Structures are given as C-alpha cells and as structure tokens.
C-alpha cells in the first residue's frame, strides 16, 4: 500500500521520461575510430545545425545523440558533420589512400543505428499504448467474470473480476512508478517495448490471481469453514506454487537483465519488477479484497 502510494507520487510529480517512440524525434548511434572524440567535441561538431534539445551520451564504444528533428535531411547533415569530426581525429594513413571505400574503412566511422520518428507517429503511439492497456484490463476482467460464473456464492462472480482488475491496476501503477523513478535518477526512457512489458506483467499477474481464485472456486462448495478461512486456506495451498513460478520466470528475466542485449535490458527489468509485485498483489491484495468485500456486504 505504501509502495502503491509512493508510485503514484512518483508518477504524478516526475512522470515518465518518454522515449522518442512517443515524443517523436531522432536517436542516432555512431561509432568513431580509434581516437574517440569527447562529448563536448561531438556536440560542438553539430552546433551549427541548431538541433533542438540535443543530448549527447557516450556509450561503451559509441555515442548516442538525441534530438527533436526527425527529417532525413537533418539526419544526413548530422552524419556529415560527425564524419568530418571523426576523419579529423583519425586521418587516413598515407598508404591507404586509394579508392573512397578504403578511406571509409580506415577512419572507423560507422552509423550503428538511427531512428527518426515524426511527431504525429509518436502521439499516435501514445494513444495506441494507452488504449491497448485499457483494453487488456477490461478483457481480462471480463474473462474472469466469465470463468468464475459458476461461483456466485457468497459473492458474485463479477466481483472476482473487479478484484483482479484492482490488483492489476496496482501492478501497473507500481511498474510505471518504478520507471518514473528510473527516469528521474538515470534518465531511463520508456519506449514501445515498455508498453509490451506492462501488458505482459498484466498477463502474468493475472496468472497468479487466477491460480488462487481457482483454488477458492474448488474449495468453496465443499468447505465447512467460513468464507474468510476458506480463502485463507486457498491462498496458503497455492503459496508455494505462486512463489516457485514467479521465481523461475524471474531467474530467466534476471539473466536477461544482467547478460542480455542492451535493447531488451529495460524490457526485462520492467517485467521483473512487475512480476515480483504481481505475485505480491495476487496473494496479499486480490484475495483479501474478496474477504473485505464480503464483510462489507454483511455489515450493510
């Protein structure tokens, strides 16, 4: 609960640092020759182009440039400037002067990757992402209401759906909050794969919730205990499974975070955080909610 509130505070104060997938703009990654320029030299070399909100970030062997403009024209101009900078630092050795292709090969300049996204595309993607998440939440709740249609005592099946929805919402908020924190502290940007990660977390978290609910579904008709105790027993019965499952998945994710390619690292991290709290929420949130709801009904 504390986490949930903290997450909301993070989101509302800092917000997510949106990647160019959503905002539009360019991301250019280039590799320089043996004599690498420093960050200031790189930014100076493209100063004349007056790029909007330019940021230069050194990476392991390369530099990552981000800027607002996304046209092909600007992209080419930036490349020309950077290449000039590189060729100045890594002059072609005399014996290699020959055809232009060998010259390119010797200076070591290489465009590793470029993404340019127009602002309209970015906005569209934002809308798409939000509607995808909402759609998934609704679809899952509906499915659960349907799957548990036979269990209407003591509480109606749609309440299982709503309890799941609340648990899922909780997970989503925590993951987003976590990335708001990462964005603030390390400048981690969220892109489309983050949306995929959030959606996958929803899928996983609902796995856990369903397993517990399934046990409740099985135990209720033959249970001599009251509702609260039945639920408590069901949660305990499935506890090992929930923890073990999450652990195996988290093993895999952990290894991706630690050893995987840079482009899916944050994707895996989002999943890791989400699945951890997903397990937590299905045990400590979704099922107790049912009990609270039931007690509430009794009082009224």
């Amino acid at each position, binding site marked *: 609960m504390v986490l949930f509130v903290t997450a909301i505070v993070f989101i509302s104060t800092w917000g997510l640092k949106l990647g160019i997938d959503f905002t539009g703009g360019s991301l250019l990654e280039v590799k320089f020759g043996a004599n690498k320029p420093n960050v200031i030299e790189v930014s100076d070399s493209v100063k004349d182009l007056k790029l909007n909100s330019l940021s230069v970030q050194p990476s392991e062997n390369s530099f990552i440039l981000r800027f607002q403009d996304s046209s092909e024209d600007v992209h080419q101009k930036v490349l020309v400037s950077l290449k000039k900078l590189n060729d100045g630092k890594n002059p072609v050795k005399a014996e290699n002067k020959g055809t232009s292709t060998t010259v390119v090969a010797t200076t070591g300049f290489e465009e*590793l990757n470029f993404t340019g996204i127009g602002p309209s595309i970015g906005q569209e993607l934002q809308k798409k992402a939000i509607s995808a998440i909402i759609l998934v939440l609704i679809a*899952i709740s509906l499915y659960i209401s349907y799957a548990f249609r036979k269990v209407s005592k003591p509480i109606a099946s749609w309440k299982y759906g709503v309890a799941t929805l609340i648990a899922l919402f909780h997970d989503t908020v925590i993951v987003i909050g976590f990335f708001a924190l990462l964005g603030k502290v390390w400048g981690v940007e969220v892109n489309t794969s983050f949306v995929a990660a959030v959606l996958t977390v929803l899928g996983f978290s609902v796995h856990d919730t369903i397993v517990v609910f399934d046990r409740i579904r099985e135990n209720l008709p033959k249970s001599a205990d009251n509702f609260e105790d039945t639920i408590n027993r069901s949660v305990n019965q499935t506890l090992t499974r929930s923890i073990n499952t999450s652990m195996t998945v988290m093993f895999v994710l952990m290894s991706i975070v630690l050893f995987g390619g840079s482009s899916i690292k944050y994707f895996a991290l989002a999943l890791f955080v989400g699945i951890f709290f997903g397990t937590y929420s299905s045990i400590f949130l979704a099922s107790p909610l049912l009990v609270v709801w039931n007690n509430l009904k009794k009082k009224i």
Partner: protein
Amino acid sequence: MANVTKNYVTLPQVKDIPFRLGLDLQGGSQLIYEADVKSLPEAEKSTALEGVREVIERRINIFGVSEPVVQVNKTMSGSYRIIAELAGIKDVQEAIKMIGETPLLEFKEVSDKPLDTSSADAKKLTELNKLSTDQAKKVLAQAVKGDDFVALAKANNQAQSVGVGSDALTVGSENDGDLGWVTEDVNSELVKPVKFLAKGQVYKNIITTKTASHIVKLEDKRLRSDKKTMEYHLRDISFPIYTAADLAAVNSANDSNINWQSTQLTGKHLKRAVVNFNPNDGTPEVSLEFNDEGAKLFEQITTRNIGKQVAIFLDGYPISTPTVNEKITGGEASISGSFTAQEAKLLAQRLNTGALPVPISLVSQQTVGASLGQQSVDNSVRAGLIGLAIVALFMILFYRLPGLLSVFALVIYGFISLAIFKLWPVTMTLSGIAGFILSIGMAVDANILIFERLKEELRNGKDLSKAIEDGFSRAWPSIRDSNFTTMIVCFVLIEFSTSVIKGFAVTLLLGVIISMFTAIFVTRNFLKLMSNKWLTKYHWLITSVKNKKEVVPATELK
C-alpha cells in the same frame, strides 16, 4: 503437432530453412511514409494507395533487397501509412531518395530523325538500302536488255502499297507493276523522266523518290479525251528505300530497337485513367483523360503519328506501345491492346499513380546496423540459455524426477517452437526472442502447478498413480484460465502495436499454445511410462512427502 515434429525429424532439408530475422537482428531499415490522400474521393483512395505500394515495391526491388515488406496501414486517426522494411540494405539514403520520387510517366513517339550513325540500327539501315539498290541495278540491267518486264515486276515488286509523292499509288493487284494511265500532274516524279521515251521503252536510269528506287517502262501514251493533256500508261518495278521509321515498324516486335523520343506530354498532364470495356467486343481498355494542356499536346502528337506507334513509359520502361489510328482531340484517349482485365486494371493503377502521385512523406525511419544486431542476438541468446539452465537446475532440485521429466518436456517444447518459427515462418526480432524466453517461463509454470498439486494429493493420502492423475486434472482449470488470459493479452498486442511488439506477442502466443501441449501431454506421458511399482519403491524420486496411510502397491498398473 505430431505432424510438425515428424517433419522436423524426417525431412533433412528442414535444417536448411533459416530463421527469418527481423530488422533489429540482421540490420536494415524500416521506413514509414504518410500518404496524402485527402484530395482524393473515398472510392479512389485504396486504388491509389495500392498503386503507391506497388511502385515503392518495384523501386525497392531495383536495390536487390531480399523480400522487401511493403504494407499499407490505416491509422486510428484515418491517415494512411506505407511501411517499407528493407532488410540488410546498405545505402539507406539512396533508397529513401528513390522511394520518395513520384512515379514518372512519359509519352514518347517514334523518332523520325536519322539514327545515330554509330548505332547498330543505322548500320543495319545502310546495309538494307545497299541491298535494295544493288538489286534495283541488277533488275534494271535485265529490263534494259529486253527481259520480260512483267515477269521482272512480279518477281521484285513487294506486295505492299508504295507511296509515291503526295498521292499513294498502289502497285497493281497482281504485282505486275501496272500503274495504269496517269498524267504528269498526278505523278510528275515518274512521268517526267519517261514521257519522251518511245512506247514500250524502259527508262535507262533508276528513278529515286523519297521512298523507293523505281525502274519504269512506258507502255503507251495518248492524248486525253479533253484533247489537251497527255496521259501515260506506266509499268513500274520499285525497290523500297528504308527509313528509320520503317525499321521501327519492322522491329516493332522488339521494342528496344525503336528510337523513342520524348514528347512534352507527361504524367502531370493526365487527369486520370480508368478501366473500360469496349462496348462492341467487351475487351478491356484503359481510358485516359488529359487536362487542357495535355489534350492539346496529345492532339499534336497523334496528328503527326497516325499509323505509327506511340509509347507510354513508366519510370523509364515502356509499359504500353499502342498504334495511333486517327488524330485524337478532346483530351481523351483509350489504350486498347491484347490485355486481360487484370492487366488493364494494373495499367490504369500505374497511370493513376503517375498522374495523381499521392504525395508521400517520410515520417519515421529506423536503421539498425548489422553489427549491432548481431551483438544483441548473441547477448540475448546467451542470456536466455543461462536463464534456462538455472530454471532446469531449480526444477530438478525442487521436483526431482518429475522436474527432470519436465525439463525433457521443455526441450521438446523448444524444438517444436523453433521448428514452427522456421516453417511458418515467424519473423524473429529481439522482442520476439524475449517473448519466446518468457513463454518458456509459462511452460514451466504449468508443470509447477501440476507438481504442487501432485504433492498435495499425496499428502491427502492418495496412492501414487491416482495422485498423478488428479494432479494433472485438478491443475488443468487454472492452467487453462491463466493461459487464456495470456492469449487475450497477445491478441491485443498483435492488433494494436508496431511490428516490434507484434513479434513479441506472436512468439508468446505460439509459445503458450505449444506449452499447454508439452507441459501437460508430454510430461504426463513421460510419468506414465515409468513403472508405477518402480516409482512407488523409489518414492523419494517424486517427493519427500509421505503418504499418511501405509503405502500400498498400486494394483492398477498402467
């Protein structure tokens, strides 16, 4: 499923099917264009877009990109996007330039200028004419010598009509060269040199007109009925003088030999092209409608090219070379030819895109260098393997024999999935691999659910085989429900997202479906294969949980 497994095992060539790698793995570019179709009526939009898509695809093909993917997408906000994926392309800048050009439509006519003397055509022309005049000289010698003129005429005159001067004079029907009675006014070129000859004499020189070399015999001459003008009865043997235009006509089967010259008429003068069907015989035609300037130009072109071919060039290649039948005014024309309705539609589509170039603008591009892709793959595959090893270890330590069996099932699951990825084929992207790794986690989840249940049933005092049965059947509803929700998520992702996430969702979806099969069916059958007696004896292989009751050897052995 069994089918796929069988394919994988028995067909050795399956090994040769490579994974289809996405752009992020093999390097390449994804270009997204926005097509501006606001100015078009709704009905023509899809045709125009299909045309643009096709043009882009053809342009990309010039670059030798393997299996380019070009799709038209309608966005939620109602604008149209054309997404081009160029795998493994080297020069993206050049590709962007090529794609961005609007299709170039030109009308060309046959050049009547002498061809370049250095060209093969010019050489051929000289040769042909030399042959023709040589033959004329030979025949003249024979005619002057007194050989039968009619026989010579029949042997040498060609069946075609011979246009002489402004009046088209046709050679006699039997090719005997009889021109009939003509006056000097009608055909001065032939009459003038021969009018002073005696009746029955052959003119001693070759008479050269614009189109042919003539040998002429004056058969007879007389005063016309008006008593003023003379008329002459001529017989003629003609040898054609070939021009570039004739050569073009001769070679019309072979377009490349024609010396096409540009007219000013281009695609910008075309209002639109539609497919029509000839009301008489029902053959498909493509009707063209020009704007005012184009109509004027077209009229001029057709006026000077009656009986000749004009060509419609698209992006530098002739796509149609109709023959002009008459002068065309009013800015409307139709191209008829021996094409099918499908071809006519295609042509109209191409003309429309040339004429109504839906302006496209590059709104997004993503280029991944091949080296970066390779590094990512290597890292991710390694990470996946490490993760799997840890999972396998965990499963074996925690669940003992069933855990080991589930690892076997997992390996089978891996083989089936990879086979399907290859055979389908599923495009493997980085996120696709992540989806695959994740689906392994879900496959393991199903087994954990079953084994936990198995332990529980044992605790409740069931004997081993019953506990195994119940473990599977009781765990099923939760496996089913949880996997169904995952599938729901996958469907949403496939429907709503960009290609990168789509890859993730597709592999995850396939993985979940396959894992339901392997985790339940395969693991269960492995467990059943074990002798029940043997399992009961070595109970510790399954779990440390002891039956509350005395362990009774099961009677019903499977």
